[in-house]
């Protein structure tokens, strides 16, 4: 009694294996991992018809032709650049962040950060429809309430400067984190210039 069942299952499995997927009308497909600007190469796992293939090298393309046949082979960087030229050109600017430093106990920038403003603002202005987050921080000199107020004043100072550059105020979020997120961990009541900062994130 057992044998015929097993035979049936085997027959059914064999039947499945023998029927190749007919995709005579499908468009050819191609996927390739490319290096990040930093040179980092990641990975993509391609799953198809029960199979799995890991692509973890740059410029190795997995192709599926119109008949459904899969081929994985190196592709030149030039070919990828050519095929995807318009596509890659349309990638939005990469999210970035900038840090500006402040004088002790004040919402006034350090001379070094003042000098850096043009560069940072230039980066922000170049982006279409930027979404900007401005977060103010302090060092641990003073109590919580004082530092909450000071960190917000720093963030709003930067926010006002950005609005002055004609960046729509609705696209800028600002907040103060007081002495809760120290860049350099210190004891309480320690003056630390690197903690007196505003972090600007843009995407």
């Amino acid at each position: 009694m057992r044998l015929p069942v097993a035979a049936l299952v085997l027959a059914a499995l064999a039947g499945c294996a023998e029927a190749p997927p007919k995709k005579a009308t499908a468009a050819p497909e191609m996927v390739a991992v490319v290096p990040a600007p930093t040179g980092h190469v990641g990975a993509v796992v391609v799953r198809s018809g029960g199979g799995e293939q890991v692509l973890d090298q740059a410029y190795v393309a997995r192709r599926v032709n119109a008949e459904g046949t899969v081929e994985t082979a190196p592709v030149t960087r030039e070919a990828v650049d050519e095929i995807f030229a318009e596509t890659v050109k349309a990638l939005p600017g990469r999210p970035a962040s900038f840090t500006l430093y402040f004088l002790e106990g004040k919402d006034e920038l350090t001379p070094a950060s003042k000098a850096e403003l043009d560069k940072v603002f230039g980066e922000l202005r170049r982006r279409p429809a930027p979404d900007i987050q401005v977060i103010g921080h302090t060092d641990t000199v003073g109590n919580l309430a004082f530092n909450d107020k000071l960190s917000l004043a720093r963030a709003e100072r930067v926010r006002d400067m950005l609005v002055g550059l004609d960046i729509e105020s609705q696209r800028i979020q600002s907040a103060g984190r007081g002495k809760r997120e120290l860049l350099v961990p210190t004891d309480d009541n320690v003056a630390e210039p690197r903690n007196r900062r505003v972090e600007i994130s843009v995407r």
Partner: protein
Amino acid sequence: MRKTLLCLAALAAALPAWANDAGVLKVSQGQVQVERDGKAVPASVGMAIRASDTLRTGPDGAAGVTFTDNSLISIGPNTVFSIDKYRFDSTTHAGEFEGSLRKGKLAAVSGKMVKQTPESMKLRTPSSVMAVRGTEFVVAVDDVIAAAR
């Protein structure tokens, strides 16, 4: 009343995409349409992109979206790309992103979601599902790639 409504509409349109939207359309060139709730609307830079939107480009079109987890996706000419699912928690960085490239070309840079949970971003093509472990890749579903090597 009418003025209030207009003001509210203007305010809603101008809000940044930190909250409920999936992302923001940052690049739009040539013919680009966003299909939402069965209607096609012309794309404009700065518009919010939501889960279940479909982006469609013409022969001269290209578009780029920045998602709330900092992942980036761009599409080239003659492309149809749908966002099937999108969810991202900016506190825990947990989320899921599922998109479908029906035809055309796409470039992607994965974001915080994939960094936190590899393979939480998935891209479907007519033949396969690609699970992203990070970070950058290109995909085409297109007759013109057949000959290129």
